[in-house]
């Protein structure tokens, strides 16, 4: 299976159809779609591509879900089908979005639920040193393109002791992650994805004590309940971001990182 890394506009004006997906659907459903459509590439609909606002989703709503819906509507006939995560590994909004996209676009939507693998995999990218944004983006890509053995070796060799933690889903805007140092470990749903258990609430809520962690939630996401609770429980900082990263939010994250660094 291959990921399509073109932009939304390039796909719209191009000649090839893609398989859209959101969340972390089970590998078997993704494989099945790939076989049905002759190895067509996969396009991650969660990502912000500046798609035209469809207006299908209310303004006061999770931006990631809006990305999923607006991207799918913008692509329309350029999609073979959408493989949609709709179980506890995503959220109720994922389930509702699947219905919306099917009704509005007429495109086939494969409704999936990911129970996760039996034994969690190793959190290689989540615990290695390096750009947090690159590591989280790559983690999401592993849904379609798992780490190569070279990458696994490198991530293992680059494992670092954490100075900070980031908990949550990949944020919108993704630039939030540029504020974190390279020694930031990843927790929450993103870690669950790397470990192959996106619906595992125990794993999602597991964080080490004593590490300064930013608990991120996307505005209007139900996970904000977890983020706020965990931040209070572990003396971290809860940050809730909707559309844009304000100067105040940036300052809060910068200050938290600077003032709470664990010296290694």
């Amino acid at each position, binding site marked *: 299976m291959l990921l399509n890394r073109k932009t939304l506009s390039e796909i719209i004006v191009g000649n090839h159809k893609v398989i859209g997906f959101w969340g972390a659907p089970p590998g078997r459903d993704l494989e099945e779609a790939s076989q049905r459509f002759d190895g067509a590439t996969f396009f991650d609909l969660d990502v912000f591509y500046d798609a035209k606002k469809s207006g299908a989703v209310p303004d006061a709503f999770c931006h990631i879900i809006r990305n999923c819906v607006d991207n799918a509507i913008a692509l329309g006939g350029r999609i073979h089908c959408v493989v949609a995560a709709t179980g506890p590994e995503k959220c109720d909004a994922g389930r509702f979005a699947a219905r919306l996209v099917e009704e509005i676009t007429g495109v086939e939507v494969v409704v999936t639920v990911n129970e996760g693998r039996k034994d969690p995999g190793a959190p290689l990218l989540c615990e290695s040193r390096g750009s947090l944004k690159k590591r989280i983006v790559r983690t999401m890509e592993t849904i379609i393109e798992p780490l190569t053995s070279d990458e696994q070796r490198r991530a293992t060799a680059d494992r670092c002791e954490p100075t900070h933690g980031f908990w949550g889903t990949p944020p919108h805007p993704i630039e939030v992650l540029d504020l974190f140092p390279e020694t930031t470990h990843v927790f929450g749903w993103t870690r669950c994805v790397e470990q192959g258990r996106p619906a595992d609430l125990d794993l999602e809520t597991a964080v080490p004590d004593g590490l*300064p962690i930013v608990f991120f939630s996307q505005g209007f996401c139900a996970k904000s309940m977890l983020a706020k609770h965990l931040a209070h429980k572990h003396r971290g900082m809860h940050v809730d971001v909707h559309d844009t990263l304000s100067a105040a939010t940036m300052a809060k994250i*910068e*200050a938290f990182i600077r003032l709470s660094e664990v010296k290694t």
Partner: protein
Amino acid sequence: MKFGDAGSSWSKLFTVGDDSVKIVSTRELVAGDFRFDWGTGHTARNRSERFENDLIALSSGALALVDDDDFTVLDLGSRDAKLVAFAGRRPVKLDWSVGCASATGATLEMLGKFYDIDWDAIEVEDKWTPVTCGTYAIERIMDQVSAGESATKAIGRFVHGLARNCFDFAGKPDKLYLSGGFTLNRPFAKVLRRYTEVVLMGRTVPLAGLWSLARDENPEIGQIPKVLLEKVTE
């Protein structure tokens, strides 16, 4: 070495060797050619060799000035409110209300000028005006005054509402360290004390924070000057 905390309305400047902090209007600062070695506050961003965001300067200053392990500091200036709560001297809550300009100092300053208010004559009572939005609050003050209420009473209720908001924003602590221009507003401090113990830190906490950060890099600059540590005399 020059330090500057350039807020929305007022800028606080300190040069090593000075025996006082110079306060100039930010309009004057913008019109002039002021430059800082260390700066904070959004107007200082492009005028500083080293810029620290407001929360970092405030937090560093508070940590330098307060010995408690667990404490909350609120900086209330002309435009916004900034909050840092520490537990074990580590920040556990950082907040910055930037958006609503109308509920803080600039509004109060404008009201004071409009009604020619002597702040020492402000009467603070049990009643308060809800300050969900400063524009509505101003409208209510004007309505009350035109209905025959005294401006000092109407503004007193606004100040009371503002103090309640700040107390809520700060997480209702048992003790609150107050920084910024509002430390000089006696009616505000008086009514805030109905809700919590208040320590008035004055307007120089962010400057003390900048000094503290500069000293981390260059210990030779020595201890924070006394003039940056002086609390408000009541």
